[in-house]
């Protein structure tokens, strides 16, 4: 019983302590006057022990941002690149948000 308790406690401790986020980079572009329409996009991938051969997941965030502001101008873009470490697995994530302004004809 004591052994089971130790194993369970260890598993919980490992899961909680290793689920840590590190913020790799943050950037912000010029903010617009009109800030009514906020759009955001997230792209991520999971890598085992850090082994991966591509960084293509980043493009998903861009395409999503573009799709949410067709024919408009996206400014005030806040980009965050962060990595969350789980047990043996890392989640790489790009979170981007910005203000969409579509000029009226």
């Amino acid at each position, binding site marked *: 019983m004591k052994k089971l308790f130790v194993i369970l406690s260890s598993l919980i401790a490992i899961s909680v302590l290793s689920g840590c986020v590190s913020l790799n980079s943050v950037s912000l*572009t010029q903010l617009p006057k009109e800030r009514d329409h906020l759009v955001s996009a997230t792209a991520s991938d999971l890598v085992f022990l850090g082994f991966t051969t591509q960084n293509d997941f980043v493009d998903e965030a861009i395409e999503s941002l573009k799709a949410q502001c067709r024919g408009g101008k*996206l400014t005030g873009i806040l980009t965050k690149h962060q990595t969350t470490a789980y047990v043996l697995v890392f989640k790489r994530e790009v979170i981007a948000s910005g203000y969409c302004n579509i000029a009226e004809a």
Partner: protein
Amino acid sequence: MLRVLMISLILICSGCARLDHIQISDIDQSQGDLRPISVKLSDTGFNASEAVAITSELAQSESAKENLGDLAAILALINMGPSTGNPVYNDRYAENILLQLHQQCPTGKITALRNIREARSYGPVSGEIVRIDADCIL
């Protein structure tokens, strides 16, 4: 033999992509059609300490192992400090990026710039990459 196999496996598996930094600029889709453009510049990065440490593992005699281990520690201490990726021997490899970007976009109107600092790592050697993806307004 097993040691060589293990080190080879580590080197092969470490042919990995690394993402250090990404920055997205304003995206203007109001001025016309967009054509994707991309510029990638890279230089070879070399981690001398890691290379010596691997050599140390492969060494046959104990004294050679010890000496190489000490050398690896000295090299690690010399290169200690904040850095992004492995050191390169040319600090100007990314300087022509703007020129190359303009060559791909004759109209000169470039939007949706994505500044990406990444690398391909093969053990102690790596390709340290600066990539700019963008859209040319036609």
